[in-house]
C-alpha cells in the first residue's frame, strides 16, 4: 500500500512535522491553523492569568483593540504610579492568577459565594490581601482602605465578567498552596510575599487534569451566568515554574508535569465547553522549531520576539488586522497612557513651572 492510499494523503502541510517547519523562518512557523471566531477592534477583551497574560494585554492595547479594563486608577493618579499599583496590568486589579482554582475562587468571592477564613494578612502596620499579595507596594497601610479597595475590586471583577465579550485566560501552574480550613487557594505560598507559612493551616496541592477541567468549567459557568455569549480563549504559559514544592522532583520534571496537565486540560475543555478554544502560544514558544531562542538568559522569561510571534499569530487568525500591520507590530509596546488625563496633567505641570518663573521674574509682592 502506498502512502497515497492512507488517510494522511489528503492532510495539509501543517499535519506533518517536516513540512511544518522546514525551510521556514522562525517567525513564519504557524501552529495555530485557524481561528475559531473573529475579534474586532470593538470586541471587549478581558485578560487574566499568569505573568505571560500580561503580554497579551500589552499588545491588545498597543494595537488599539478594546482591552476591557474595569478597574482603573482615579485620573489624578499618573500612569506610572497606577502601573506600580497594578492598575491596567489585567482587566481588573487581581494580579497574577496562576491556577484555575484561584480563578474560580476569585469569581466566587466577587459574587459573594465564598468568604475565605483567611481574610487579611496583618503585617504589623501593613495589611496584605492574601489573594493578591503583591497588588500594591508594601500592602495597605489601613485595614479600612484594604476592605474598601477589595469591595471596589470585586465590583470590577463582576463587571468584567458580566460585560466582556472575550475572556482570555493563561493557565500558569498546577502547584498551589491552600488553606486547610476552607480550601482557599493562595497565588503565592504564605510567607513569600506577606503572611506567614503555618503547616497547621496551609497545605500544598498539585491539581490534576480533572480538577483543572472542573474548576475552569465552574468558572465559565459563573462567567456566563449573566453573559451567556462570552467567548473564552485559553492559553498555557510557556514560562517554567520558578520552583516546585515537590522535594522528590526536579523543577524541570515538575514543570513538564504541570504544563502537560494544563495542556491536556485545555484540550478537554475545548471539547466540553462551547466557545472555549485553545490558542497554542505554549507551542509557539516552547516548540523544537524555536530551539529555545525565545527564552531569555535565565531560560525562563520569554523575550519580546517570542511574544511578538504569539501575538502576530493571534492577530492573523483571530482579527482582521491587515498583514502589513501585523508584520509591523511594535517590538516593545508599553501600556498606553490614558491620553486625556495624562495630557491635562502634563499641561498643568508645564504651565505651573512657567507661572512660577513668570511671577518671580515679573511679579512684585503685593505688600
Amino acid at each position, binding site marked *: 500500500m502506498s502512502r497515497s492510499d492512507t488517510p494522511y494523503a489528503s492532510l495539509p502541510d501543517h499535519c506533518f512535522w517536516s513540512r511544518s517547519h522546514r525551510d521556514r523562518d522562525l517567525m513564519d512557523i504557524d501552529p495555530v491553523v485557524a481561528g475559531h471566531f473573529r475579534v474586532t477592534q470593538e470586541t471587549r477583551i478581558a485578560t487574566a492569568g499568569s505573568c505571560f497574560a500580561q503580554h497579551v494585554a500589552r499588545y491588545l492595547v498597543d494595537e488599539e483593540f478594546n482591552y476591557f479594563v474595569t478597574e482603573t486608577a*482615579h485620573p*489624578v493618579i499618573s500612569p506610572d504610579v497606577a502601573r506600580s499599583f497594578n492598575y491596567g496590568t489585567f482587566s481588573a486589579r487581581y494580579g497574577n492568577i496562576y491556577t484555575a482554582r484561584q480563578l474560580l475562587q476569585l469569581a466566587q468571592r466577587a459574587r459573594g459565594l465564598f468568604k475565605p477564613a483567611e481574610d487579611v494578612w496583618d503585617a504589623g502596620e501593613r495589611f496584605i490581601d492574601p489573594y493578591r499579595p503583591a497588588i500594591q507596594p508594601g500592602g495597605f497601610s489601613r485595614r479600612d482602605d484594604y476592605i474598601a*479597595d477589595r469591595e471596589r475590586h470585586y465590583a470590577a471583577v463582576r463587571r468584567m465578567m458580566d460585560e466582556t465579550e472575550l475572556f482570555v485566560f493563561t493557565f500558569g501552574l498546577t502547584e498551589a498552596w491552600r488553606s486547610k480550613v476552607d480550601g482557599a487557594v493562595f497565588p503565592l505560598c504564605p510567607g513569600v510575599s506577606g503572611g506567614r507559612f503555618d503547616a497547621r493551616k496551609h497545605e500544598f496541592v498539585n491539581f490534576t487534569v480533572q480538577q483543572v477541567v472542573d474548576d475552569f468549567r465552574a468558572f465559565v459557568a459563573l462567567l456566563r451566568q449573566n453573559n451567556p455569549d462570552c467567548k473564552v480563549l485559553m492559553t498555557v504559559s510557556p514560562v517554567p515554574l520558578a520552583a516546585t514544592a515537590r522535594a522528590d522532583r526536579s523543577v524541570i520534571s515538575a514543570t513538564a508535569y504541570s504544563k502537560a496537565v494544563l495542556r491536556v486540560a485545555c484540550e478537554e475543555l475545548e471539547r466540553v465547553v462551547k466557545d472555549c478554544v485553545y490558542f497554542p502560544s505554549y507551542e509557539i514558544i516552547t516548540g523544537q522549531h524555536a530551539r529555545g531562542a525565545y527564552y531569555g538568559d535565565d531560560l525562563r522569561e520569554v523575550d519580546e520576539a517570542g511574544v511578538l510571534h504569539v501575538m502576530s499569530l493571534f492577530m492573523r487568525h483571530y482579527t482582521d488586522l491587515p498583514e502589513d500591520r501585523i508584520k509591523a507590530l511594535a517590538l516593545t509596546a508599553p501600556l498606553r497612557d490614558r491620553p486625556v488625563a495624562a495630557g491635562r496633567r502634563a499641561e498643568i505641570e508645564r504651565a*505651573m513651572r512657567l507661572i512660577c518663573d513668570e511671577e518671580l*521674574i515679573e511679579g512684585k*509682592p*503685593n505688600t
Partner: protein
Amino acid sequence: MDLRVTAYGHSHLSAYLHAKRSLEAAGALPGVALSLVRLNLPELLPGIEYRDGEAVLSEAITRRIRFTLRRDQPEAVLSVNMGNEYNIIAMHAHPEPFDFHWPEMDLHADKSRTVLPFDLIKAELAVLANRNTLLYVRFLAENFAGPILLVPPPPPIGDDDHIRANPGVFANNIAAYGLNPPEVRLKVYMLYCQILREAATGRVIYYDLPHQIAEAGYLKKGLWYSAPTHANGEYGEILLPKLIDRARREVARAAAPQSSGATP
C-alpha cells in the same frame, strides 16, 4: 563673624527676596550674610530635564548651584525650591471628584466623592515631590556638607474667591472643572508636607512653618499674594528671621563636639 546662609528657590523665594530687602533696610537681619539664589531665571530654564524617563536637574542648574556654593561658602542652606507640584492634584476639581481618609490626622473623606486609597495618593504625591522639590534637595545634599533646611511651601489659601480672582495658571482648569474644596486642598498639602518631612533625613532638616502664618491650617489672610498659591513679602518677613535663627542653631549643633560617652 556673620553666619553665611544661602537660600535656593523658585517662585516661593519671591516672598523671601522681598523680605530680605525690607528687613535689611530696617537693619533687622543682623549677623547674617544671606544670599538668595533664584533658580528660575530665564537662562536656567527648564531646570528639570528628562533623561531616559528620569527627571534630572539641568546642567545649567547644577552649574549655578555649584558656582554659588563655591562663591558664598555657606554654613547653612535653605531649600525653597519648587513646592507647587502638589497643586497638580490639589487645586482644581476633577470630573470625578475625589477625597481620601487620613485617620492619623483625624481627617476623613467626604464619602459622596470617590475615596482614593491613602497609599495610592501618597505614592502619587511622592512621585511629584521626588521629581521636583526633592530633586533639588538631593542635589544640595550631595554638594553641600552642612545643614540644609527644607522649607515647605506656604499653606494653601482657603478662600475660593481669592483664587478665582487670581487663578494664574489654573484659570482654564478652574473655569472648566471648578475648584477642589478647601478641605481637600489642605489635606493634599498636608500629605505633601508629610512626604517632604519623611524625606528629610541626616543633614536635611524639615522646617515646620510657625503657627502664626496660618489660620485653621490655611495661609492667613494678609499673607496672600495676588496668585493662587503664593505668599507675599510679609510672610517672608515673618519666616526669614526664624529660618536664620534655626540655621544658626543647626550650624552650632553641627559644630559642637559629639560626646563619645567615654569617661575622662
